[in-house]
Every structure is written in structure tokens, then in C-alpha cells.
């Protein structure tokens, strides 16, 4: 093989090695929110106290929360 052949072969190898960088894949794993894997929980109004009445539960909670404001009680 003459010098010219050797040079073109070398250039081809360098080009091939250089191009390997272009094929790099992203290394960062994309985050995905996990999904709950445990047992299902019941709603707080699904019990003998509220008998499935969501509105009654919400009203009870609202009254209880408002009861924390002592200004409502003292004035």
C-alpha cells in the first residue's frame, strides 16, 4: 500500500472514531411520578357516623375549623 492509501485509511479511521461522539445517547433518566401501590382507603364520610353523607361531613369539618377562632366565641 502506498502512502496515499495509508493516509486515506488513517483519515477514515480518525473520521469514524470522531463520529462516535455524535451517536451519544442522553444519560439522564427522566423522572416519572410513581403511582400508589398500596391498599385503597375509604373516604372519611363512609362510616356509621356520617353514613356516606359527604355534605354532612364537610359541614362538620367547617364548623369545627371555625370553632378554632375564639373571637367568634367571645364577641
Amino acid at each position: 500500500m502506498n502512502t496515499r492509501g495509508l493516509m486515506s485509511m488513517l483519515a477514515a479511521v480518525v473520521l469514524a472514531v470522531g463520529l462516535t461522539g455524535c451517536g451519544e445517547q442522553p444519560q439522564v433518566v427522566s423522572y416519572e411520578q410513581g403511582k400508589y401501590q398500596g391498599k385503597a382507603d375509604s373516604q372519611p364520610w363512609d362510616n356509621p357516623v356520617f353514613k356516606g353523607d359527604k355534605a354532612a361531613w364537610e359541614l362538620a369539618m367547617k364548623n369545627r375549623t371555625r370553632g378554632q377562632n375564639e373571637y367568634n366565641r367571645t364577641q
Partner: protein
Amino acid sequence: MGRMKFLCDAERCIECNGCVTACKNENEVPWGVNRRRVVTINDGVPGERSMSVACMHCSDAPCMAVCPTNCFYKAEGGVVLHDKDLCIGCGYCFYACPFGAPQFPNGPSAFGERGKMDKCTFCAGGPEETGSKEEYAKYGSNRLAEGKLPACAEMCSTKALLAGDSAAVSDIFRDRVLRRGKGLEAWGWMTAYGAEQKEGAK
């Protein structure tokens, strides 16, 4: 119902630890675990301030994001709960939580020895039958299902610790601050409490 939140008024907290005791008693929390703690800044220095801290039931909870077994879920009102049957006690949630809420009954010890994670449930029990022995043994009392607020807030003698729908709690706090005429100058006040909120707002 909007989002369930705690709010601790540092101007009112007297560091009595009544909330801590109420929580321990209500939920029969195991030795070594404090679901709620009172933190004091500048203890002993005039002007010291105390805050009652537990799980803040974050809207975008980091514990949920890092759990490798996906044992966390959001119950009604955004209360962050977890299934102890799935918990492997890895402690990732402990490192992720900015409030130090996740606790381990056998900690501090190596992974596998710590036991199942335990934290504040907003007195909402867990994924077992409501009011059952199993629910009480694993997660404690389910006061929310009885139409009650968490024991810590209801026990607070100075009403420094408030719990409930975030909009209603904000309204109470706003009313308080306006009456005492101090605190309005705090950075971010107008954003957080400036306008009256509608109860149940998301």
C-alpha cells in the same frame, strides 16, 4: 373541601408541648417516635419563638416523590398518608422531608433495622377499615372520620396551632393579625393572607 393544613402562630405558642402530648396520647405513638415536636428558636433569649412542627401534608410532597415502593397517597383534603404494609424502612422519605416528619420506631439504625416509617396522619388513620383495631394499631386515631380535627390542634391551649381547610385557617390567622396590628409588615403577607379566601378553594 379544600386542602387540609396546619398553621402554627409563633406569637401565641408558649412551648407547653401540649400538642406533642395530645398526639402521643391520641395515637399511642411508639417510644422514640414524635409525630409532632415543638421547636424553639433563640431558646432562653428574650424574644424567643416556638413553633409546633409535624408533617405539613405538602401539596407536592417530596416523600411521595422519593419513595421507592410508592407507599404514599393523598387522602381526602390532600392529607398525605402511607401504607405501612408496603414501607421497607429505607429512610428516603426522612431525607427528603424538609420538616423531619418521617420517624422510625427502631431508629437510628441501619436500613432494614429501623422498622416501618411513622408520621403524622392529620388524625386521618390509614388504608385499613375505618375505626378498626388494625387501623389504630398501625396509624392511630381516625378523628377526621368522626368529623373532628387533629387532637394536637384541638388540644392547643392558646390556639397557636390551627388545623383544617387551608382557606378557613388562613381567614382565622388573618383576622388575628389584623386585630393585633402586628405581622402585616412580614414579607409575603399580602400574597399569603392579603385577600380573603373562599373556603374550599384549591
